[in-house]
């Protein structure tokens, strides 16, 4: 890449007389970079890079699948330990044909959504209360900051003692897990609003509730939605944990039964379904953010 300048003839012609000889002494400093949108080689290279990126994204997982399948065919891995992709696909079809998956998914999703709704709402309200009122901060912030350091999984045995092993205990686990991301982000969002904006609102005679409604909440919304996205992710994580507690239905039940019958193919299907739920949740949350925050530039940094 010695002669990048060839793409920008005008600039080259003007900078050339500055030095005699064929190579500018300060070449490094004044070397031209082509930023024009349709400059031949750079753009073709860009296209190429794009296609290479796509090919790698699709190709590498396919190669892994192929190696996986081959190692099974060649007898390198015992199918009871790691069944080949074909066997896993067969197990997936089996679950669908029997209707197990269709029955389990709504049950599990409901658990996670109910927990998220309760925990998310509680976290939101606590965050608003602590963010907007000093009293709220004094009451809630210290205890919540302390509780947040406890991994919620460590609480599961205690919850079983307190709430038993029914549906209720499962919802409590998910609720407990989702409160904190929601609380922390809401609180930080409200506190992060530029005091200059609040002062401006004051000069225009906005009442406190108007200031909250028209200035603080809209400006804090991005942070609240980040909290919701995290909480939704955590609700799935908590679902997996909660469904280890004596599940009679749902994805966890399928996994438990498969575990007892030593069906690693079904266990892997279950894990993949959890993963798919996670990806879907993230996509939905990002779409929601784009819809709710039309004023934000489309540069995602988080």
């Amino acid at each position: 890449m010695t002669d990048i300048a060839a793409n920008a003839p005008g600039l080259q012609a003007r900078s050339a007389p500055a030095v005699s000889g064929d190579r500018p002494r300060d070449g490094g400093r004044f070397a031209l970079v082509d930023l024009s949108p349709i400059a031949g080689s750079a753009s073709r290279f860009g296209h190429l890079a794009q296609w290479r990126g796509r090919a790698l994204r699709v190709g590498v997982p396919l190669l892994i699948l192929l190696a996986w399948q081959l190692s099974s065919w060649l007898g390198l891995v015992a199918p009871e330990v790691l069944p080949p992709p074909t066997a896993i696909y067969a197990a997936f079809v089996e679950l669908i044909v029997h209707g197990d998956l269709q029955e389990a998914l709504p049950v599990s999703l409901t658990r996670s959504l109910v927990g998220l709704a309760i925990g998310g709402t509680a976290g939101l309200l606590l965050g608003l209360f602590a963010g907007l009122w000093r009293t709220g901060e004094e009451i809630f912030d210290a205890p919540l900051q302390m509780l947040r350091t406890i991994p919620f999984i460590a609480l599961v045995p205690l919850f079983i003692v307190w709430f038993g092993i029914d549906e209720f205990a499962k919802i409590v686990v998910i609720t407990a897990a989702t409160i904190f991301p929601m609380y922390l982000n809401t609180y930080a969002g409200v506190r992060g609003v530029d005091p200059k904006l609040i002062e401006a609102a004051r000069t225009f005679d906005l009442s406190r509730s108007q200031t909250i409604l028209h200035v603080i909440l809209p400006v804090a919304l991005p942070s609240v939605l980040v909290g919701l996205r995290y909480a939704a992710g955590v609700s799935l994580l908590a679902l997996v944990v909660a469904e280890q507690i004596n599940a009679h239905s749902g994805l966890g039940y399928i996994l438990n039964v498969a575990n007892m019958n030593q069906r690693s193919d079904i266990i892997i299907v279950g894990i993949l379904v959890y993963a798919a739920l996670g990806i879907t949740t993230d996509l939905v949350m990002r779409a929601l953010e784009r819809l709710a925050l039309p004023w934000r530039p489309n540069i995602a940094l988080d």
Partner: protein
Amino acid sequence: MPSTDLHILAASGPRDAVELSGVRRVFGERAVLDGIDLTIRRGEFIAVLGPSGTGKTTLLRLLAGLDKADGGRLLVPKTRSVVFQEPRLIPARRVWENVVLGRRGAQARREAAAALEEVGLGAHVDAWPRTLSGGEAQRVALARALVREPGLLLLDEPFAALDALTRIRMHDLVLQLWRRHHPAVVLVTHDVDEAILLADRVLALSNGSWGLDERVEIKSPRDRSDPAFAALRGRLLAELGVRPTIAPLQ
């Protein structure tokens, strides 16, 4: 020290918009404002000059009601608007919603659109603040300040961050809007020319009180090349303690 409330009353003189007497504001040991008297007539345009840190913003914040005085009497109109050095628009609200902040509905939108039309931003009613240039955003702030027809308009170096050409256009705009709405105006600025161009009266703060209070008698439209303009500028600069080191171009 007795804390003095801002009295939101029509100032006592029938033609006065602002009456301050003996106003003090103390930070720590230092009295930034030390017994300030000031009367501004209705519709009068005054400019406040003074070196950095002399308390211009402090005075403006007292007049706006954003800060409390430590002593003295302050009478100001009930409706006051502020344009700060930076536009302070709510990024999550469209331009028109910023103008009529706190209100909703078709009537509010019509008023906002009319105010934006006045500052030459009729085409940006529905835009997001992020998409505006610095000068446009400051004009929105001006529209937002004027839409509530204030008795007192407070401007804290509103053009300081703008380029020279935009600033000239903003001067014309402010004069035009002032003639139409006729609020009393307090303009804080560092720019002596700007003060002479716009104001009826130029004051300067020094050491907590007025070091200078001059009426500008030059007829408008004022012109920087007018000898009277240059004479007043020279006098103001001398009183502010600045001696011109570069001979003026002739």
